[in-house]
């Protein structure tokens, strides 16, 4: 790929930002969807993340824009946006946490075309299990395995030592494995 986002950002903020949205929109969306656990507010969170990114980029020098690690940088903003969102939610009496498992569309128990339903059900069970995972494991697991960030990047982002991140990711995976929703035959091969 001869044309990378940071180069484009350094040359032309607007075109670079459009390319940033195109190339990284999916990962920001996927991560925020799994962090918040419900699809209700995700589009707002994604918009918020990118709008903050744009404001920040407008203030950066071309050199700084050119040196950007776009994925980790965007997800740092996204994680903060999500945290603020959760904090706002907890202040409201309606929802107690950012994760609303009851809202997740579980295909379990729904009859459907066998093969596809089996695949979809498997995915939905993972989604639900992930949403049940405590936040301190869920965040690093999502950043590691959905965003595919390196441990050092995650450590930077969360402000903790690399070893801690590794431990949390591995405990998170272990916890997922023990979830009753994810039966052993399906997950561990």
């Amino acid at each position, binding site marked *: 790929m001869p044309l990378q986002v940071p180069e484009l950002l350094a040359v032309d903020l607007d075109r670079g930002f459009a390319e940033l949205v195109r190339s990284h929109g999916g990962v920001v969306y996927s991560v925020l969807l799994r962090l918040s656990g419900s699809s209700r507010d995700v589009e707002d969170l994604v918009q918020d993340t990118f709008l903050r990114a744009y404001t920040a980029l407008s203030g950066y020098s071309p050199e700084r824009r050119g040196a950007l690690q776009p994925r980790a940088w965007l997800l740092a903003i996204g994680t903060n946006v999500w945290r603020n969102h959760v904090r706002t939610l907890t202040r409201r009496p309606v929802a107690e946490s950012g994760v609303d498992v009851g809202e997740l569309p579980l295909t379990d128990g729904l009859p459907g075309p066998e093969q596809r339903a089996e695949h979809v059900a498997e995915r939905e069970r*993972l989604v639900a299990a992930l949403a049940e995972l405590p936040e301190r494991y869920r965040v690093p697991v999502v950043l590691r395995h959905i965003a595919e960030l390196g441990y050092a990047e995650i450590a930077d982002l969360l402000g903790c030592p690399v070893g801690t991140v590794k431990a949390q990711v591995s405990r998170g995976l272990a916890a997922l494995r023990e979830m009753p929703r994810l039966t052993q035959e399906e997950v561990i091969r």
Partner: protein
Amino acid sequence: MSGRYEGPGGPAGAARAGLNGTASAEGAPFGFDSLRGPMPVDLGIRILRRAGVPERAYDRYSLVEGPVVALFVAHGRGAVTGAGPVDRYAGPEDFEEQHLLRTGRAALPAGRPLPGVVGALRTGRDRNLRYDYGTLPESRSRVLEAVRGIPRGQLRPVGWLGAEAGVPEATAAELLEAVRSGPAPVLIPVHRLGDEDGRPVDCGLPAVLVERLRAYEGIDEERLGRFAAAGTHYLGSGTTRIFCYPTCAHARRITDRHRVPFGSVAAARRAGYRPCLSCRPVAA
């Protein structure tokens, strides 16, 4: 509650060692792959709008189901900026990346295609579309505009393009190179180009697709084959004393009794015929 997560108990512990030991080979435990996906269509464009990014900084594109083949069609500022058959790309992302390389602009998915594109594909007439040829040299964009001038269901030899586009000195190879550099094959009807006998040329599209596009437009290959075998490249009308390309609409309505075949423009001229003003064979 949390104690349950701390212990690497039982079978999970065994699996965990394998997963954790190979950080790079972790790949996608649990099928995390299935949880990665694109943004909802239009979300990217909504973000750019809200951020106040001007429209000249990006393009949109959509998947358009044509009658013969599905196309990705990108557009910006009211003009088509790029298009191509879906199966020529590894996927939407491949199209997006190639678009960025060619135009320098990101193409974001949009739910609605540029107005007129669906109709242009259905009718084979793209006259009411505008194209943004970007950095293509002007001589090349003139060649492409000439290709657009070939009516649906008709064929023109490559040499015809030179005179039409105002580059009479260009060789057939150069003209074809210009055709292949076009940003929107199929939408720009490159399949309506042929050699002297109307046989398909290397217009940048796969031969099978060219065949299907021609069949859809009702080009009678069998009739063309008969003319080719007889060495006929032009048809004259004995009543009007005008000669045309064989696929010209006027040539197709000449009755058998009045149809006069010619092998060359010179032969037609000698017989006292003048070239048709619609298909303009005079340059050939």
